[in-house]
């Protein structure tokens, strides 16, 4: 069953909910190897997204909604994560611009374009201890699941699981991008906050798809 606009709306609502519930956790993670605002930034952004995306006309496509998510994140999150997530949703929405509903291929196209957008802006590679360490495994797992002919919900669940492992994989790393890079060896043993927020958003997508 392909996913329509209601799925996107539910995904946004669940993301906002998850970010809000994990606000302090994200602040604590960012406090340890950054400047302690990631939970606040994301919460401010997704709160605004939840409001803004509710204002759309009834005939809005998934891409229309995702574009509003993008511009709202850009204009409310700030910090490094604002432009990065904003670009991700913007490029992702462009990749699915023509669809009324998102099938497995569209989901993979969305995730790939989103990840590529982040790399374009932030120049991070896997292993740099950033949100890319969650996005890239997620894209790869989604593509593999789609190649195996899995359902949309299964594809997103695979992406979320891979993001989760990707986030965990940042623990032993030294950072090469973002604020944590200033810390050198002292970043070792801490999880990258952006990879955790990425996992929350992809898990929200999987849950929304499962409930659809």
């Amino acid at each position, binding site marked *: 069953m392909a996913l329509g606009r209601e799925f996107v709306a539910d995904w946004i609502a669940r993301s906002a909910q998850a970010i809000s519930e994990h606000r302090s956790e994200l*602040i604590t993670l960012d*406090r340890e*190897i*950054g*400047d*302690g*605002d990631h939970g*606040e*930034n994301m919460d*401010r952004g997704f709160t605004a997204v939840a409001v803004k995306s509710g204002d759309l006309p009834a005939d809005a496509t998934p891409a229309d909604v995702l574009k509003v998510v993008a511009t709202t994140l*850009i*204009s*409310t*999150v*700030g*910090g*490094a*994560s*604002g*432009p*990065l997530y904003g670009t991700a949703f913007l490029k992702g929405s462009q990749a699915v611009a023509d669809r009324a509903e998102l099938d497995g291929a569209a989901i993979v196209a969305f995730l790939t374009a989103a990840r590529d957008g982040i790399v374009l*802006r*932030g120049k991070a590679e896997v292993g740099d201890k950033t949100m890319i360490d969650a996005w890239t495994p997620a894209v790869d797992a989604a593509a593999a699941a789609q190649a195996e002919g899995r359902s949309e919900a299964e594809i997103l669940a695979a992406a979320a699981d891979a993001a989760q492992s990707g986030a965990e994989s940042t623990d032993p790393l*030294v950072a*090469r*991008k*973002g*604020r944590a*890079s*200033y*810390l*050198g060896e*002292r970043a070792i043993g801490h999880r990258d906050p952006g990879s955790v927020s990425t996992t929350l958003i992809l898990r929200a997508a999987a849950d929304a798809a499962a409930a659809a």
Partner: protein
Amino acid sequence: MKKLINDPKNVVAEALEGVALAHPGLLTVVADPAHIVRADAPVQGKVGLVSGGGSGHEPLHGGFVGYGMLDAAVPGPVFTSPTPDPIVAATKAVDGGKGVLHIVKNYTGDVLNFETAADLALAEGIEVRAVVVDDDVAVKDSLYTAGRRGVAGTVLIEKIAGAAAQRGDDLDAVTAIAEKVNGQVRSMGVALTAPTVPHAGEPSFDIGDDEIEIGIGIHGEPGRQRVGLEPADQIVDRILHPILEDLPFASGDKVLLFVNGMGGTPLIELYIAFRRAAQVLAEQGIEVSRTLVGNYVTSLEMQGFSVTVLKLDDELTELWDAPVQTAALRWGR
């Protein structure tokens, strides 16, 4: 957390209301999207200067808006880069037909948000350049980091580029001056205590009663090394030597020596640090020909300080000495 605030959510907005009430005639505050502009903006025929970044570093940047320095400042939430919208609004507000220079501290968030804003401003026909300030020698500038941070040297760039714009230099020339200052200025800081971001509610890092953090950033990012508390002179030596070696500064150089307080350190202690820094420069044959001491680039209530050294020549000295009239830096008018 003990703060003189009402609600953590309203800190920046209420402070901006205070800024507007405290400095009428000098500047205008726009509440949404939040930015501060010179009262007489846009100044026709003058390059516009816009800077910005997270709040919590006051007087940076709003305290430097006015004649001979910034045309606009864009304050983000505390310690968080502003989004592109207010940067675009500020850029449009100060465009006097000669283009606008963005002075951006080198943090991923600031760089990305200013980049997006520059694209949007360009789309509206405004010529925008950017100089990315990266004076902090505590961070290695290598492929393995986000590059050196922009810290207290930002004030010197804003002052000197501001003077160049005020005397009528065009966008290329103002940009070149800003790049030149950035190329000749080096800084490093130390923290004795951690700042507490209002919405976080607890200190940005834990630090023992007998420890200090060397190479601290201005957002409560931990520094590059933690050592035991030491006499002031030793602490100054610890941060001054990497600064001097980096450029490097050499005997015979004329410099501006700037000892900056991070917010919570008493002025009497900043003068003790200044004394040592000036002594070391004198020993090395470096002439301190201009000075600045005080709280200019702060990190909320953090106790600590940074040392900044800028290599001067006649042109930079003249631009430094030129009249300036802002809330936090004023002379000559």
